[in-house]
């Protein structure tokens, strides 16, 4: 009786172990397959022209996504100009001055904001900027991306600032350094690598965002050098080319996907490397 139950228990244990292993394999399998396709299809379409030319009409081989990459860079850059300072200074307020009900409300709204589907961010950017400006624009796209960046930068910066020991701030204050200089030159400075990690992660996140750009930046088949006009973006081009029925465009989309994935992994590896070297 006891022997049999022991056998049963061991058998249950073994099958549970196998199931957990199987679950892990089934989770990692799609990752492997997706990577296989991105690398295989992506490399076959990437050549120097991919980075220097704009998409060609369907039916013509070749062409590239240079305008999309440039557009993404411009809009991410502009989004960072707004998102990074708002996030960092907001975080300074929360750790150095906050504590009351207002700080709780701000923390809560940052959490809520980061949970809002990005397509809704796009809709709001549309009503706030596209409608009054009477047209789709890179500016509206950047604004939508900035709204997504703010809560990410805020929360990661806050975590980093919280880890700076109070004694460090006290030492600075005791030397007669005013609070604001202490915040910037001591507290923020000593948390800097962590803060940069957060910024990199936020950039990686918005670099792949497509939904908020659909009706703000809209996309552009050509070069655009005005912020008040529709602008191409890499994820938008991937989307438009993937759903189009042309082989040549599919190839471009795979190339764009490879570029985007390499960019994201470089950013997150850099973020991880920075985060690690600190400790």
């Amino acid at each position, binding site marked *: 009786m006891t022997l049999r139950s022991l056998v049963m228990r061991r058998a249950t*244990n073994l099958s*549970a*172990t196998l199931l*957990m*292993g199987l*679950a*892990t394999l089934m*989770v*990692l399998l*799609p*990752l492997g397959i*997706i990577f296989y*396709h991105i690398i295989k299809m992506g490399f076959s379409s990437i050549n120097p022209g991919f980075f220097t030319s704009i998409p060609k009409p369907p039916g013509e081989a070749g062409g590239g996504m240079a305008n999309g990459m440039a557009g993404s860079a411009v809009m991410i850059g502009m989004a960072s100009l707004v998102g990074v*300072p*708002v996030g960092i*200074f*907001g975080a*300074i307020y929360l750790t150095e*001055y906050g504590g009351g009900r*207002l700080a709780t*409300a*701000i923390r809560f*709204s*940052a*959490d*809520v*904001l980061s949970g*809002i*589907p990005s*397509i*809704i961010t796009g*809709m*709001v950017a*549309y*009503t*706030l900027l596209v409608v009054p400006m009477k047209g*789709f624009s890179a500016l509206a796209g950047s604004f939508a991306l900035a*709204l997504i960046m703010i809560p990410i930068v805020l929360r990661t910066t806050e975590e980093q600032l919280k880890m700076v020991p109070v004694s460090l701030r006290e030492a600075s204050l005791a030397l007669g350094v*005013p*609070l*604001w200089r202490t915040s910037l030159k001591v507290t923020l400075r000593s948390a800097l690598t962590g803060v940069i990690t957060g910024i990199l992660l936020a950039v*990686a996140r918005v670099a*792949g965002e*497509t*939904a908020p750009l*659909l*009706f703000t930046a*809209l996309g552009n088949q050509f070069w655009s050098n005005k912020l008040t006009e529709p602008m191409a973006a890499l*994820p938008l081009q*991937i*989307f438009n080319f*993937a759903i189009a029925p042309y082989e040549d465009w*599919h190839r471009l989309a*795979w190339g764009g*996907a490879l570029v*985007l*994935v390499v960019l*994201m*992994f470089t950013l*997150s590896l850099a973020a991880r490397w920075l985060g690690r070297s600190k400790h």
Partner: protein
Amino acid sequence: MDKTATRKNGDGIFRALTMLFAFSILIILLIMAGEMVWESLPSLRKFGWGFITGSDWDAVQGSFAALPYLYGSIVSSILAILLATPLSVGTALFITELAPHKVGVVTASLVELLAAIPSVIYGLWGILVMTPWLQTTIEPFLIKHLGFLPFFQGAPYGVSMLAAVFILMIMIIPIITSITKEVLLAVPQSQKEAAFALGATRWEMIRMAVIPYGRSGILGAVILGLGRAIGETMAVTMVIGNTPQISLSLLSPAYTMPSVIANEFAEATSKLHTASLMEIGLILLVVTLVINFMARLLLWSVTRRWKGGTP
């Protein structure tokens, strides 16, 4: 004397500046919510509750009702959650309880890689690789062997509810896995050792010590995954077929709330059309806010308990 005055000024200005930035986040949120309500007013006034009970979406006639989109969003997300949860919890258990430390770390970072892939790339893979495969292999197989069920009837299109469920499952697994992993890591070692000391096998230890301790945290992770699935736009739009219909069959194309916004918003034909899409966005916003709030409450109750130290 003068110097102290400027110092105080500096501090005051700095404080005001940081407060302004911090406060802007609250303002942004209020503006977003206000805009969504304000812009959907024409549709709210005209259709009332009929908006979520009717299924007529006709831009030419100017009549809009959103039930097919609600149905598509709810069904695709819930099915995806049902498939993703056992796989995610299994993987999280593998990482924390089973695998040697190094294997666990590598597995966890691979799962994180999965989370870093942008939605549009899942969509690209979904539409160019997965749906053709579904159309030629999986769906004919389902029709042949399970075709007597109402869920697997009709022709194999590839782009379908099933495709959306699969792509959503792949996309939310990393979120549920990584949060569940954090929850499981917080189970006190002493609980596990106590189970082992009583002679439990590893599985019995997991069942007696780990799962009960992490239950509400795991539930929180699953609900957070649900919130993500409902708001997911690009990948679903690319594989679901974008047909506003309510069909029991998983093989027929469907439509979701974010997808109809993505497809129609830029080219909305009339004020009422825009307002109706805004109302869909408003419903989406409210649903995701409620879901996220519930998830946070659950996860928060777990973390608070950990701080208290006793289970």
